[in-house]
């Protein structure tokens, strides 16, 4: 016997025995003692009411000490049957339920549905309406990214940026409330345009936010990306290879952080995006830090877009004439927008009646969460929270 002290698993094994290799992947729920090792795998329930799960997500995690052997996402705690409810709502009423799908960025779901309906019923949208839609969507994207950036900092142990970002988000929500009448449940975008024109005097609060947005976000970047602890927690954690991202149908910042250049605003321009100049930030490694960098840069780009939209806001009507009891001809369409989480699509089937025959919501966060089982296995439990947080999941949209 050598003089070196025996450490780790070896120390608790009977002399001469070798530790068995790790169990194959997949949740086993092994009872104590079955795997020949003296250690017991622990099945840990994370959520559905857990401060680090970003909503009512239930994670079943199999642990070997600190190491995650397997993880399984259990969803459905926020299921309200939005797709089914949509079958009994008329086309102009749909905003009321679609706002509640992705409750962090309601304008994107509303616009996706409006685009689908307009395609189906062949409605022309005035140029101004398109620009207003782009404006509110970009503002909403910033608000959504703020509310991602703050909590992901908290996941890694940083409290201050969260509160600073909430302060800036409040400036955006005040503007959105002045435009639509509600802070989050907007019900503002309708087939044919938007409900009302931009209110008078909206320029001032919007410019006030634009004046500080880049500067304050730069400070947050210093607080998070400029901090060694945050970098250590994010770099190399939750790496998603481009092939994996494609295989799971991921989209949005999660896909772009893996280096794949796909942004619907560029790939299939809708609303005013064809006329606007902006860049699509890309990552290289595909880890949590890349996703952080991509999203922060997206906010900077959104600020750029909002500035252009505000300067070039056209004159004209805010909506075209659309019948209240809209009955689109029978048919099937798909329209998608680039939501803060990725490709948010509405697949709409009409049988010619006053309500959709079927509405299907392609929820980007649902596909992005699909990678979690793959992503978390083999990591540490502390990294699990960061990896999961970096995906930017919104359970309202996943469960629908």
């Amino acid at each position: 016997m050598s003089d070196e002290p025996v450490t780790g698993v070896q120390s608790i094994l009977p002399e001469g025995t070798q530790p068995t290799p790790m169990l194959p992947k997949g949740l086993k729920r092994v009872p104590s003692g079955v795997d020949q090792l003296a250690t017991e795998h622990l099945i840990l329930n994370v959520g559905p009411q857990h401060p680090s799960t970003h909503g009512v997500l239930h994670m079943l995690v199999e642990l070997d000490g600190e190491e995650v052997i397997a993880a399984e996402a259990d969803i459905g705690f926020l299921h309200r049957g939005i797709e089914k409810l949509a079958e009994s709502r008329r086309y102009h009423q749909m905003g009321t339920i679609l706002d509640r799908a992705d409750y962090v960025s309601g304008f994107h779901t509303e616009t996706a549905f409006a685009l689908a309906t307009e395609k189906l019923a062949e409605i022309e949208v005035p140029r101004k309406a398109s620009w207003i839609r782009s404006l509110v969507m970009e503002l909403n994207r910033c608000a959504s990214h703020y509310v991602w950036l703050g909590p992901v900092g908290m996941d890694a142990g940083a409290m201050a940026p969260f509160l600073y970002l909430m302060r800036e988000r409040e400036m955006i929500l005040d503007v959105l409330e002045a435009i639509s009448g509600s802070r989050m449940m907007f019900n503002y975008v309708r087939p044919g345009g938007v409900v009302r024109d931009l209110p008078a005097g909206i320029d001032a609060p919007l410019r006030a936010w634009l004046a500080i947005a880049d500067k304050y976000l730069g400070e947050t970047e210093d607080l998070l990306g400029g901090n060694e602890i945050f970098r250590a927690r994010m770099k190399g954690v939750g790496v998603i290879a481009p092939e994996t991202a494609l295989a799971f149908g991921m989209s949005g910042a999660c896909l772009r952080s893996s280096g794949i250049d796909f942004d619907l605003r560029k790939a299939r321009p809708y609303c005013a995006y064809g006329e606007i100049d902006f860049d699509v930030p890309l990552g290289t490694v595909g880890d949590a830090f890349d996703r952080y960098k991509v999203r922060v840069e997206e906010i900077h780009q959104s600020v750029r877009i909002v500035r252009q939209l505000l300067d070039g806001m056209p004159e004209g009507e805010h909506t075209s004439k659309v019948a209240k009891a809209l009955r689109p001809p029978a048919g099937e369409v798909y329209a998608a927008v680039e939501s803060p989480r990725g490709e948010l699509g509405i697949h709409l089937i009409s049988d010619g009646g006053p309500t959709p025959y079927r509405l299907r919501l392609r929820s980007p966060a649902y596909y992005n969460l699909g990678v979690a089982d793959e992503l978390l296995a083999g990591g540490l439990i502390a990294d699990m929270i960061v990896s999961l947080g970096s995906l930017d999941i919104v359970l309202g949209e996943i469960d629908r």
Partner: protein
Amino acid sequence: MIEGTGWLKGFVITFRNMLRGPITVRYPEHKLTLPERSRWAVQQRLNDDGSPRCTACLICVKECPDDVLYIETSAAEGGGKHIDRYVYEIGACMMCGLCVEACPFSAIEMSHEYELATRHGGDLVRVLLQDVDAASPRRERKGEADA
């Protein structure tokens, strides 16, 4: 020994934010003004003489996705409609504003009443109009044309 400069940046930025002043107000004493379009509890709009503008056409009732509005009517003595009760279930209302958009007579509006917490469940059902004659649609339209 603390490595790196992240902690120093943190102090500088936190100190800078300390000087930026509060963003909150002392709520019950001080209140923020809501934007004009803010949607809160639905309320009736009345004519200058206190009579309702509502014609009991039931468009708002049919429009509401959550069925929170309910109107009981009967025939008025001199012809036309009589509103027995106009009930508004505020506890189930999501303040989407579709009823107000749909009303052809501008008889209802979204108020700025946002302090809606109550101790009694009964307060969540409001009777907005009770035992009044409904406005005549013709007179109402004419009045709008004069104005």
